């Protein structure tokens, strides 16, 4: 989902940066407050960041014959709420932009918006909705993580379609083309991300039931399940 360095017109680059900045600042404050109030959650915060690091480094082949990578933002969004993923996503994207020439500084705002804002907010909303509809914990986690992943790539397609409307078909035609590259490729990867997030939640629920209960992620009746 990385829009490459320099591949957004300057107005778009500035606009997306301005749109993402408040989330990163607010997220940083949320992280600081959380670490101050509950220092014992520091390690788990590190796990959320580490998960995003691992998953966004894995470029997986897909049915469309191209490769893409998951985002790993669902875990942190479910554990800590969506805003804390904005600064974490910024670290991941900066690492890739500066050292790997993957993504870029001028497109950082747009990439952040897709991966570290739309994705996590979608994850948190879907998780809540699924829990509200009495889906099991594992199913809710799966839906949240995989839809967050998919929506991240849909957002990237929208961003590119907005910046580069098709000369004939306009925005819609362009979106279909970009979504054909990003969103379709992403479907099996999103499923993989959902499954992997369930795996890590299973491990956390088994070995850290108290933390998850304290964070109100799981109910007390589900600890032993």
């Amino acid at each position, binding site marked *: *989902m*990385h*829009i*490459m*360095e*320099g*591949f957004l017109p*300057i107005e778009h680059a500035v606009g997306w940066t301005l749109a993402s900045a408040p989330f990163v600042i607010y997220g940083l404050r949320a992280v600081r407050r959380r670490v101050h109030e509950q220092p014992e959650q520091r390690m*788990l915060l590190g*796990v959320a960041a*580490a*998960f995003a*690091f*691992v*998953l966004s*480094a*894995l*470029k997986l*082949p*897909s*049915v*469309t*014959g*191209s*490769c*893409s990578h998951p985002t790993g933002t669902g875990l942190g969004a479910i554990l800590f709420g969506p805003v804390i993923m904005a600064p974490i996503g910024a670290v991941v994207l900066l*690492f*890739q*932009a*500066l*050292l*790997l*020439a*993957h993504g*870029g*500084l*001028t497109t950082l705002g747009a990439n952040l918006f897709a991966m570290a804002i739309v994705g996590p907010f979608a994850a948190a909303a879907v998780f809540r909705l699924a829990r509200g509809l009495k889906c099991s914990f*594992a199913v809710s986690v799966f839906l949240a993580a995989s839809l967050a992943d998919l929506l991240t790539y849909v957002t990237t397609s929208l961003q*590119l379609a907005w910046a*580069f409307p098709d*000369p004939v078909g306009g925005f819609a035609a362009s979106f279909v*083309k*970009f979504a054909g*590259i*990003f969103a379709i490729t*992403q479907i*099996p*990867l999103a*499923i*993989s991300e959902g*499954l*992997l997030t*369930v*795996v*890590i939640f*299973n*491990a956390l629920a*088994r*070995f*850290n039931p108290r933390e998850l209960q304290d964070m109100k992620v799981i109910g007390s009746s589900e600890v032993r399940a």
Partner: protein
Amino acid sequence: MKRHQNLLLLVAVALLTALPLWQVQRPEAGADGKPVDIFTGADNRAMALIGQIAPSYQPWFEPLLEPASGEVASLLFALQAALGAGFIGYYLGVSVTREKMRREVTRREETDAGDTAC
């Protein structure tokens, strides 16, 4: 049961990743006779599509640092994954031990309570 479930989930992820490799056919070579590359990055395909939609568009900024080669890039990606996986592994290791000790303590407290009652 849980361990079983995780194993099955991991197998499913492996299958989802491996199936495309086996199922996607390499398209016929183009007019220039060069074999078509498959499983390239979606990001690069999007870049090529921008070139088609807006042929006059010129990227206005270059990456500050570019990995010297594909090998160096894969080194950095491996490093990124290793750092993350290492941390998760460390945390789970700590958690397993802590949970074990917690159970040990409650067990001992229970037997102690039983002893004094006698």
